């Protein structure tokens, strides 16, 4: 594919412009999807990091975990039938530190389980972000609905819910603060989803979408990401279309001397792949760099998995765009080009 490469070298400016646009678009895409992912972690890491399984809410809860109260008998029976199952509750609230400073948290409590932190009465385990706010192991925290005190037992990474750090507390303490005896939800890890009467079941994804703001947030950001991907495909189609229009004469001559149409397509594909790969490599490097220098409070979380998945999509979309623009090459008559050249 020397001819394709030679052309790029000869018309550097044109290809550099396209390359920079693709670079900017893909970089922006990576940043936004890093933000989408970061926000989603910030909003729901607690739930997202659970293994695949089934969530159960009270049938009358209108698919809202806040309103859900699992019947105690149902809970007992379910936990007995499914040894891995756990019942849990989440409520937004706050704790006061020794200086009486308030920190918002999402209180989480659960029955004995490996899936959530298990704490004893009067103890509390917090998300690591609270450590950054100055709380240390051994500190004593209070809550105005709670008669006792919480001693900070430790910190855990990436346990966020509804953009607040999670605070794991013991069931009895939780029941005192929120004055409820029932748990909100039951989670059963694993593939099979037993049907349990009186409750409604949700997949992990469905449960995430039941978190207020989660789907709205994710949907708008993901929409931007896919728009950018489609735009980059259209850029390729438009760019190569305009390039091809300028080169109709050349393609005609190449066809006249016997070049296969497929070879002409290969030329475009080669150029598209070179541009995309270089632009993506730059974007990947820069977006990874960005995740290091991103400001502290910015919820930016870009995994290499996401980056490579999106890069693959960019390549496919670029290929489709370039190919669509190539259809006009198919129609070029060699003769027409020769005569045009003579006019």
């Amino acid at each position, binding site marked *: 594919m020397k*001819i394709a490469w030679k052309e790029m070298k000869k*018309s550097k400016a044109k290809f550099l412009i396209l390359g920079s646009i693709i670079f900017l678009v893909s970089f922006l895409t990576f940043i936004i999807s890093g933000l989408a992912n970061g926000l989603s972690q910030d909003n729901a890491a607690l739930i997202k990091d659970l293994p695949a399984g089934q969530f159960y809410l009270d049938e009358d809860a209108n698919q809202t975990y806040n309103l859900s109260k699992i019947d105690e008998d149902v809970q007992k029976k379910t936990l007995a039938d499914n040894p891995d199952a756990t019942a849990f509750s989440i409520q937004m609230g706050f704790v006061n530190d020794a200086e009486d400073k308030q920190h918002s948290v999402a209180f989480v409590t659960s029955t004995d389980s490996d899936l959530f932190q298990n704490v004893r009465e009067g103890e509390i385990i917090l998300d690591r972000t609270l450590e950054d706010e100055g709380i240390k192991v051994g500190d004593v925290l209070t809550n105005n609905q709670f008669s006792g005190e919480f001693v900070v037992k430790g910190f855990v990474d990436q346990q966020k819910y509804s953009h607040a750090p999670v605070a794991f507390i013991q069931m009895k303490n939780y029941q005192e603060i929120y004055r409820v005896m029932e748990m909100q939800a039951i989670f059963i890890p694993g593939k099979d989803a037993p049907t349990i009467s009186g409750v409604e079941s949700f997949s992990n994804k469905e449960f995430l979408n039941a978190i207020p703001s989660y789907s709205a947030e994710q949907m708008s950001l993901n929409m931007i990401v896919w728009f950018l991907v489609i735009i980059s495909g259209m850029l390729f189609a438009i760019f190569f279309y305009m390039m091809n229009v300028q080169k109709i*004469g*050349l393609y005609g001559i*190449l066809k006249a*001397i*016997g070049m296969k149409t497929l070879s002409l397509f290969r030329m475009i594909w080669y150029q598209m792949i070179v541009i995309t790969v270089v632009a993506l490599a730059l974007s990947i490097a820069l977006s990874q760099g960005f995740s290091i220098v991103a400001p502290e409070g910015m919820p930016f979380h870009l995994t290499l998995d996401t980056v490579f998945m999106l890069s693959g999509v960019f390549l496919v979309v670029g290929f489709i765009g370039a190919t669509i623009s190539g259809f006009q090459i198919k129609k070029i008559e060699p*003769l027409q080009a*020769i005569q045009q050249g003579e006019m």
Partner: protein
Amino acid sequence: MSAFTIDEVKKTFTNGEIEEEILKGVNLTLKEGEITALVGPSGSGKSTILTIAAGLQSASGGEIIFEGKDMTKMSQEEIRHIRATDFGFVFQSSHLVPFLTVEEQLQLMLDVSETKTSKKEQSKAIEEILKLVDMEHRKDAYPSSLSGGERQRVAIARAIIHRPKILFADEPTASLDTKRSKDVMELLQELTRTLHLTTLMVTHDEEMLPYADRIITMRDGYIVE
């Protein structure tokens, strides 16, 4: 020995409602090692018969026999293959690839014709042809830096580098001055003889006729002599 026969070839163009018969049955046999010059008034159908013979457009009737096979019955892909391997083309303008050097233009033609010789032999062949057209000193130049005559010589080199059997040339000297035209014609004459080409050339220029072995005159879609 006849390598190429055009038999009762007709061509009709339809312009809206009007059908116009441009070629009304052209018969012509080309001979190996000879330049056949096609002359005649403008609009008489010279370019049309040349491009039909070269497989660049289809005929409305008749047969074109190349190596015993009727090209009018071949598929597009078969005709493309013949154009790539057995035909060479020189047009009024050189139609070189703007972003390839002289040497690369020739390499491209070798690639297109799927010439199966080794890289070393190919670069040797390129060198020889460039010497033949007296362009070896400009082998790394791009078309934009060549003069019209130089470009046309490169175009001729490209037309013969893959050792075609038939060379089609439509007014190859039209963009050149008399001196340059004569150089190009001498070159075509020499190449036709030494490489045993069969050359069909359209020309307007009386002065180029002495270089032809045979002169065929067209008028109103017929060959008149």
